[in-house]
C-alpha cells in the first residue's frame, strides 16, 4: 500500500498530455452525425440544402454499410444507423464529413428530414408503468421458503424511482478513423474504455471491405465512468465508414449538446418493494422486489445491468424469504448503458430507503434496525451464495462510531425542535461484486502480454485503458512491487489491438481486481521459476535469454460456479463492502439540502495505491451527491438536458467534507473499487434528509422543486 505518483501526473499539468481532439493527421477532414429528432417514425424524405456543393461532402447512410448494420456487442440488437425507420430520438441517420468544420455544421443544420410519426414512449413514467413495454429476458431470483405470513407482521410497501444520470465526462466522445487501402486496414484512434469492443464493431460494419481494424486509444481519455463502454462502438463504425468512402482520415468529436442528447445514460428505474417484518424480533421475514429498468430503444448492455441490479437488490440484509423479479422496459429514447455502479445505485436507492421506512414504522433507530437484520457468516444471498465474512457489519459499526452518529442524532433532534432549518444524519450500506457477473470472467478469458527487455525494462501489454482512474500506474505498481523491481523499469503500454492482447473491457471494477492480480501472480511466478531475487541482476547475467515475451491467461477458480438460467450460485467471487454516514443541513426557506459531510468505511481488500484509491472514493461520492441532489436529466414535455447550463453537476463550492477509511487492508486480494463509492452515498443523503425533515421522498434527485412539491401535495409528487 504505497502512494506512487501517477506516471501521467506531470504531462497532465504542463498541458502536453494529448487527448483525442488534440491530434490531427495530414489531410484529415471532420465528421458529424445527423440524428433523428423524431422518437419513432418512418423516414419519408431527406432534403439537403441547395446552396452547398454536395460533392464536397462525404455522406454515409445505412446503405453504405458493407458488412452488417448491427453493433455486435454487448447484445447484438442495435443498428449502427437507421434504415427507413427510426426507433428513438437521437438515432443516427447519416454520417457526414467535410474539410471545414464550419461548413459542415451549417450544412447539417439546414438538412430537413420528413417523418411519418408513429406512437412513441418518451417519458420514463410511461415506459416503466406499462407492463406491455417489457422486452428481453426476465430474470427471477427465487429464494422463497415456506413461511406463513403472520397477521401481525408489518407490511411495508413502496415504489422507488431513480432518474437518468449523465456521465458528464469532461471530454466529449470522439473517434478518428484512417483507412489504408494498401494493407486494407482501418486504423482507429479512440477515446474509449474497451478497444476490443470497438474493433469488433468496426469489423462488423466494414465487413469484407477491410482485412482488419486496429484500435489504439488516445494518450488521454478524458473521463468515461461507463459512458465510453458502448457508444464508441457506434461512433467508430460510422467514422470508419466515412474514412473508407472519402479515402481521408476523418475525425468526429461530438459537441456537448449532442453528447448529452444521443449517448447512453444511467438507466432510470422503478423498483417496487414489499416487505413483511416481525414486530417482535424486528426482523424482515419476507421481501418481494419488482426491479424495472428503462432500457431505451435497444437492449445493448441492459441485460447485464439488470442481472447485476437484481443480484444486489436485497441489500445487506438476511431475509429468509426473497423473491426478485427483474425486467427491462422499452422506450423510444437512446439506449441506456453502463454507468459506474451498473444497476447497483438503483438497487440501493430502493432497499436502503426502505430499511429506513421499516425502521420508522417500528419506531427504531435505522442503525439498530440494520444491526438486527444485517447478514452474517453462514447466511446466504438470494442467489444461495454463502456469506463468508462479516466485513459489511464491521464497516457499519466503524462508520457509526467514527461519525459520532448516536451523539449527533440526539443533538440534531434537540436542535431541530428549536429551529425552522433542520439538521439530519443518515446511514446506508452496500456491497459490489467485483468483475463480470457469474461466469463472465471465465468467458472473457483475459490475456496479458509481457516483454522483458535486455535492460530489464518490463513492458506490460493490456487492453485495459487509463481514463483517469490511474489504472496504468496501479497495474504497473502491482507488478513491480511484487518483485521489488524499480518503478522506472515497468510500464503499461498504450492499448493498441495489434499489440495488446484482449484483457477484456475496462469495466465492472475488474481492472485491478482481475488484471492487476494476474500481473502480480505472474511476477511472483517468474521470480519463483527463474529463481531470482533481483530481476535486473538476473537479466544482466542471462542476456541471451532476453528480450523475452510472455503470454498470461486468466485462470478461473474451479470452485466458483454460477447457473445463469436460475441465477443460483456464486455470482461474484469477491465482494467489496461499504457503509456510509452522511450529514446534511436543510434550508427550510429555500428547500435546499446542503451536504455537510460524508463518512465512508470500505473493505476493498488491499488498496494498492492509497491516494488513487481515495481519489476513487472522493470522485464516486461526489457523483453520487449529484445523483441524489441536483442532476435532473429529463423533464416531461421538455426532454433531455442539453449541457451543463441546465444539468447541474456538483461544483467546488458544493462539496462536503469527505472522510475515508479502508479496513482489512492487510488482505492478499485487491478487490473491486471503481464503482462502490458511487453505489451507497445517495441513499445515505436521502435518509439524512428523512431524518432531518421527517419527509420521506422515494425519488432522486431531491431538488428544492421536488421537496416543495412533496410538502405541498404529498400524494402526487412525481416531477
Amino acid at each position, binding site marked *: 500500500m504505497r502512494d506512487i505518483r501517477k506516471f501521467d501526473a506531470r504531462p497532465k499539468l504542463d498541458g502536453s498530455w494529448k487527448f483525442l481532439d488534440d491530434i490531427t493527421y495530414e489531410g484529415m477532414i471532420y465528421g458529424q452525425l445527423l440524428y433523428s429528432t423524431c422518437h419513432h417514425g418512418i423516414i419519408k424524405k431527406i432534403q439537403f440544402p441547395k446552396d452547398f456543393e454536395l460533392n464536397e461532402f462525404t455522406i454515409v447512410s445505412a446503405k453504405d454499410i458493407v458488412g452488417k448494420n448491427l453493433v455486435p456487442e454487448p447484445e447484438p440488437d442495435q443498428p449502427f444507423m437507421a434504415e427507413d425507420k427510426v426507433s428513438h430520438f437521437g438515432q443516427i441517420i447519416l454520417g457526414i464529413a467535410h474539410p471545414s468544420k464550419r461548413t459542415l455544421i451549417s450544412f447539417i443544420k439546414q438538412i430537413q428530414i420528413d417523418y411519418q410519426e408513429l406512437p412513441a414512449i418518451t417519458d420514463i413514467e410511461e415506459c416503466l408503468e406499462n407492463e406491455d413495454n417489457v422486452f428481453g429476458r426476465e430474470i427471477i431470483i427465487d429464494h422463497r421458503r415456506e413461511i406463513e405470513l403472520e397477521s401481525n407482521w408489518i407490511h411495508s410497501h413502496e415504489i422507488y424511482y431513480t432518474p437518468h444520470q449523465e456521465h458528464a465526462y469532461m471530454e466529449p466522445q470522439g473517434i478518428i478513423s484512417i483507412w489504408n487501402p494498401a494493407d486494407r486496414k482501418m486504423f482507429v484512434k479512440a477515446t474509449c474504455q474497451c478497444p476490443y469492443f470497438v474493433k469488433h464493431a468496426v469489423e462488423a460494419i466494414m465487413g469484407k471491405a477491410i482485412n482488419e481494424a486496429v484500435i489504439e486509444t488516445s494518450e488521454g481519455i478524458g473521463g468515461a465512468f461507463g459512458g465510453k463502454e458502448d457508444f464508441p462502438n457506434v461512433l467508430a463504425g460510422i467514422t470508419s465508414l466515412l474514412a473508407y468512402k472519402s479515402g481521408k482520415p476523418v475525425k468526429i468529436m461530438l459537441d456537448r449538446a449532442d453528447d448529452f442528447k444521443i449517448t447512453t445514460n444511467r438507466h432510470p428505474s422503478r423498483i417496487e418493494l414489499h416487505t413483511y417484518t416481525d414486530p417482535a424480533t424486528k426482523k424482515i421475514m419476507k421481501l418481494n422486489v419488482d426491479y424495472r429498468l428503462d432500457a431505451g430503444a435497444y437492449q445493448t448492455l441492459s441485460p447485464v445491468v439488470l442481472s447485476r441490479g437484481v443480484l444486489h437488490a436485497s441489500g445487506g440484509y438476511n431475509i429468509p424469504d426473497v423473491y426478485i423479479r427483474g425486467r427491462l422496459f422499452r422506450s423510444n429514447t437512446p439506449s441506456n448503458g453502463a454507468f459506474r455502479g451498473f444497476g447497483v445505485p438503483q438497487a440501493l436507492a430502493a432497499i436502503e430507503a426502505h430499511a429506513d421506512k421499516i425502521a420508522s414504522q417500528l419506531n427504531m433507530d435505522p442503525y439498530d434496525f440494520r444491526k438486527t437484520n444485517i447478514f452474517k457468516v453462514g447466511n446466504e444471498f438470494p442467489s444461495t451464495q454463502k456469506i463468508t465474512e462479516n466485513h459489511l457489519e464491521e464497516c457499519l459499526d466503524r462508520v457509526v462510531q467514527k461519525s459520532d452518529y448516536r451523539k449527533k442524532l440526539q443533538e440534531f433532534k434537540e436542535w431541530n425542535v428549536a429551529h425552522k432549518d433542520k439538521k439530519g444524519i443518515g446511514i446506508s450500506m452496500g456491497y459490489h461484486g467485483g468483475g463480470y457477473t457469474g461466469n463472465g470472467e471465465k468467458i472473457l478469458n483475459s490475456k496479458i502480454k509481457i516483454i522483458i527487455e535486455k535492460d530489464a525494462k518490463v513492458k506490460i501489454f493490456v487492453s485495459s485503458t487509463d481514463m*483517469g*482512474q490511474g489504472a496504468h500506474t496501479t497495474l504497473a505498481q502491482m507488478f513491480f512491487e511484487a518483485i521489488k523491481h524499480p518503478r522506472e523499469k515497468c510500464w503499461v503500454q498504450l492499448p493498441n489491438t495489434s499489440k495488446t492482447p484482449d484483457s477484456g473491457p475496462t469495466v465492472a471494477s475488474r481492472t485491478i481486481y482481475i488484471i492487476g492480480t494476474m500481473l502480480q501472480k505472474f511476477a511472483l511466478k517468474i521470480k519463483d521459476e527463474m529463481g531470482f531475487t533481483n530481476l535486473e541482476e538476473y537479466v544482466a547475467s542471462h542476456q541471451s535469454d532476453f528480450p523475452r515475451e510472455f503470454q498470461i491467461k486468466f485462470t478461473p477458480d474451479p470452485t466458483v460456479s454460477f447457473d445463469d438460467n436460475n441465477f443460483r450460485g456464486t455470482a461474484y467471487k469477491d465482494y467489496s463492502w461499504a457503509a456510509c454516514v452522511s450529514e446534511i443541513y436543510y434550508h427550510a426557506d429555500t428547500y435546499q439540502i446542503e451536504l455537510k459531510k460524508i463518512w465512508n468505511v470500505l473493505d476493498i481488500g488491499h488498496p494498492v495505491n492509497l491516494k488513487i484509491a481515495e*481519489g476513487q472514493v472522493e470522485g464516486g461520492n461526489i457523483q453520487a451527491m449529484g445523483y441524489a441532489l441536483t442532476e435532473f436529466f429529463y423533464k416531461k414535455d421538455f426532454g433531455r438536458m442539453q449541457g451543463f447550463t441546465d444539468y447541474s453537476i456538483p461544483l467546488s463550492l458544493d*462539496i462536503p467534507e469527505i472522510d475515508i477509511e479502508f479496513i482489512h487492508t492487510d488482505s492478499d486480494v485487491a478487490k473491486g473499487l471503481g464503482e462502490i463509492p458511487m453505489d451507497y452515498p445517495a441513499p445515505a443523503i436521502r435518509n439524512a434528509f428523512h431524518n432531518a425533515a421527517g419527509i420521506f421522498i422515494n425519488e432522486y434527485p431531491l431538488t428544492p422543486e421536488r421537496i416543495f412539491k412533496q410538502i405541498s401535495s404529498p400524494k402526487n409528487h412525481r416531477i
Partner: protein
Amino acid sequence: MKQIKLNLNGEIRSVLVDPTETLLDVLRDKLGIKSPKCGCDRGDCGACNVLLNGRSVRSCLILAIETDGQEVVTVEGISQKGLSRVQETMINKNAFQCGFCAPGIIISATELLNNNPHPTLEEIKEALSGNLCRCTGYLPILEAVRESLEGGKNE
C-alpha cells in the same frame, strides 16, 4: 478575414482570423496551442480558460478578433520556465484524474494566486467554482492549491 497580432505566451504571433472565430478555435487550430480544451463550447465548463491580460476568461466565449494587440497566456506559457509551485503541488498530490479540466483549473488558480497570494479555502473554492471536474470531487485540487501556499509566495 483579418490579420491580428497577439502577445501569446510572451511571443508576438500574427494570425489571419475570421471575425466569427473564437479565441479557443484560433489557439487550437491555427496557433498550435492545445492546452485549452473544448468541453462544452458555451462557457459552462471552464476547460478552455486562458489568461487574457492577466484575467481568466473562457476562450470559447471570446472572439479572436477582440484580442488583437492583447496578451494571452495559456498553460504552455505558465510552464515555459519550469512549473509553478501550484502545478508542482498538484502533481505531488495526484490532484487530477483524467486531466482534461486541469489546464483550465491551473489558469483559474494562477489568476487567484496572482491577485491574492494567501487565499482562504472559501476563496479557493470560489475561484475554482467556474471549472467543472467530474473525476476528483475537487478535494485534492483544493488541497493542492492550499498546500502550495505553504512556504512562501507562488511564482
